[in-house]
C-alpha cells in the first residue's frame, strides 16, 4: 500500500538579492524539482543529500508545513498542505537538533500534555508509554526536568513524544546527530524494533551513512532538488564505487604500503591513507597491514554523503 505518493513535486523560492546601490534583483531558486517517488507502508527509507539539496524542503512539504509550487502529493491519502491538522494525528516528527519537550518540566508532564492534545485514549496512552519507557529505558528519567537530561536521553524522550499517538509515519531529521556510539546503537536498535513490531514507516534524513546501513532497505539520494538515486544502499555503493579509508599510523615513516584489496592514496610522515571498496570487509586489509608493518594505530573512515554523491556522478 502506497503511503507517501510524490509525483513531479516542485518548490521554488523567490530570493531577493541586493544589486547595485538601490536595486534588488529577484531570482527564483528551485529548491525541489521533478521529484517523484513513493513509499509503501512499513518501509524504512533513508533520505540523504548534501546540505541545501532540498531534504528539509521535501520533509516540510510532506508534513504540510510548506505548500508545494506544483506537482502531486498525498500522504496517507491526505493532501498535507490543506489537511495539515488531520495529517498531524497520523505522523510523528522528530527534529534532531531541537526538542519539543517542555524544558523546565519533568518528562512525564510533556507526555501527559501530548496525550491530551492528540486525544489519545488514556488506556492506550498508558500502554504505549509503558512500552516505550521500557524499550528506551526511560523509567528513571520520567520525573527529571528535561533541561537536566543528556542529549541522548532527551532524544529518546523526543522520540517517545513523537510516537505516543501511534503515528503511521515517523519522520526523523538527523536523529543521531551529536550522540555517542552507544546511544546511536541503542536508538537504531529501537527504530528497527518499532518498524518490525508496529509496522511504522520510517523516513530519516541523516549525514551518518551508518544510520542508513543499520536501518534502511532503501535510500533516496537528493541533489539540487531532485532524486539522483533511489534503491538499496548496496546498489548505491556499487554504482558509485564509493570507498572507505583505512588510516594507518606506522611506528616509523615508510614507503607507501602495498597490500591486496587496497590502494594507498596519501602518505604524510608515518601516517598513510589506504582506500578500499565500501562493500568490502576491512578485516583482511587490517590484518595484512598489521602483519607486514609495525603499526601504532588504525582507524577507518566511512565515506560521507558528499563523497557518495560525487561518486554517483563520477560513475554515471
Amino acid at each position: 500500500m502506497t503511503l507517501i505518493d510524490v509525483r513531479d513535486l516542485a518548490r521554488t523560492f523567490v530570493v531577493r538579492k541586493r544589486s547595485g546601490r538601490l536595486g534588488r534583483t529577484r531570482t527564483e531558486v528551485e529548491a525541489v524539482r521533478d521529484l517523484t517517488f513513493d513509499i509503501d507502508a512499513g518501509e524504512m527509507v533513508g533520505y540523504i543529500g548534501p546540505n541545501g539539496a532540498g531534504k528539509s524542503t521535501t520533509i516540510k512539504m510532506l508534513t504540510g508545513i510548506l505548500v508545494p509550487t506544483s506537482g502531486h502529493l498525498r500522504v496517507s491519502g491526505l493532501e498535507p498542505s490543506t489537511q495539515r491538522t488531520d495529517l498531524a494525528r497520523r505522523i510523528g516528527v522528530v527534529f534532531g537538533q531541537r526538542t519539543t519537550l517542555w524544558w523546565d518540566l519533568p518528562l512525564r508532564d510533556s507526555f501527559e500534555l501530548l496525550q491530551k492534545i492528540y486525544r489519545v485514549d488514556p488506556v492506550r496512552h498508558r500502554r504505549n508509554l509503558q512500552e516505550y519507557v521500557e524499550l528506551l529505558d526511560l523509567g528513571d528519567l520520567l520525573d527529571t526536568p528535561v533541561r537536566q537530561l543528556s542529549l541522548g536521553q532527551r532524544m529518546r524522550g523526543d522520540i517517545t513524544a513523537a510516537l505516543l499517538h501511534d503515528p503511521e509515519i515517523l519522520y526523523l531529521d538527523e536523529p543521531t546527530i551529536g550522540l555517542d556510539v552507544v546511544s546511536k546503537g541503542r536508538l537504531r536498535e529501537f527504530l528497527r524494533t518499532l518498524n518490525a513490531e508496529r509496522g511504522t514507516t520510517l523516513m530519516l534524513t541523516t549525514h551518518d551513512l551508518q544510520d542508513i546501513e543499520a536501518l534502511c532497505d532503501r535510500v533516496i539520494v537528493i541533489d539540487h532538488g531532485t532524486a539522483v538515486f533511489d534503491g538499496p544502499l548496496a546498489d548505491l555503493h556499487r554504482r558509485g564505487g564509493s570507498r572507505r579509508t583505512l588510516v594507518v599510523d606506522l611506528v616509523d615513516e615508510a614507503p607507501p604500503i602495498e597490500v591486496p584489496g587496497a590502494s594507498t592514496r596519501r602518505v604524510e610522515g608515518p601516517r598513510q591513507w589506504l582506500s578500499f571498496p565500501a562493500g568490502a570487509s576491512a578485516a583482511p586489509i587490517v590484518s595484512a597491514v598489521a602483519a607486514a608493518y609495525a603499526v601504532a594505530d588504525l582507524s577507518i573512515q566511512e565515506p560521507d554523503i558528499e563523497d557518495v554523491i560525487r561518486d554517483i556522478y563520477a560513475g554515471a
Partner: protein
Amino acid sequence: MAEVTAAVRGACQEYVWIAAMWVRSALAYPWSFWILVVGSALITLLDFVGLGLMFHTIPHLGGFGLREVALLYGASGIGIGVADLVIGSVEQVGLHVRTGTLDAMLTRPVPLLVQVCADRFAVRRLGRISQALVVFAYGAGSVDWTLAKVGLALVMVVSACLIFFSFFVAFSCIQFWTVDSTEFANAFTYGGNTMTQYPMTIFPREVLKGLTFLIPVAFVNWYPCLFLLGRPDPFGLPGWFAFVSPVVAGLTLTVAGLAWTSGVRHYTSTGS
C-alpha cells in the same frame, strides 16, 4: 454549527492545557515568579500614581475630573490587560518564525493561533488587570448607576478585550512578512492603550477621527464611558456610538482573522 462549537470548545481546552504547562514551568522557579508578579504590579501601580500626581496640580484634564479619568483608564486597562494575558504571546510569532519553533507547531493537531497565544502564558500579567480593576472601581464612583448602565459597562469591557485582542493578532501578523516588527505592532497595541487612558478632549479633532474610524480604539472606552457619565459628546458625534462597541469588536476580529490566515498562508508558501 455543532461542528464549529466543538472546534471552538476543543481549541479552548487545548489553550488551557498548554497554558497550564507554562504556569507550571514558571513555578519551577518560584522566586523569579513572585518577583515578576510583584514587580509588574508595582510598575502598573506607579503608572496610575503618576496620573494622580498630575491631578494634584491640575484639577481637570480636558474637562474631566480624576474619577472620570479613572473610569476611562480602568476600562481600557482591563481590556488590554485581559487581551495581553490571554493572547499577548502572539507578539512573539516572529521569534517562532526565526527559531523554527513555528514548524514544530505546524506538525501538531492544534490550531496554530492557539499554540502561539498559549505559548509562554504568564500569570504575572494578572497584576495589570487587578490594578485596572481597582482604578475602574474608583472611577465607578462618578457614575449614577442604573441597570442599563451596568449592562453597557459589561458590554464595554468585553468589547474592549476583543478590540485589543484583534490589535494584538492583526499587528503581530506583520511579522510573517518582516520578522522584526514587534515595535511597530506595539505602537498600536500599547500605544492605543495609552491614548485611551486620557479623555479624547485633550486631542485635536483629527486625532479623534483617526481613533474612531481608522484605528477604532475610541470604542474601547471613550464612547461608552460618555454615556455612563451622562455627558454629551464634546465633539458632537452621534450618541448611539456608545452602543456600537460590540459591532466594532466584530469588525476588528474579522480583520484580525483575515490577517492571521493570510499571514500563515504567506509563511507556508514562502517558508520564511
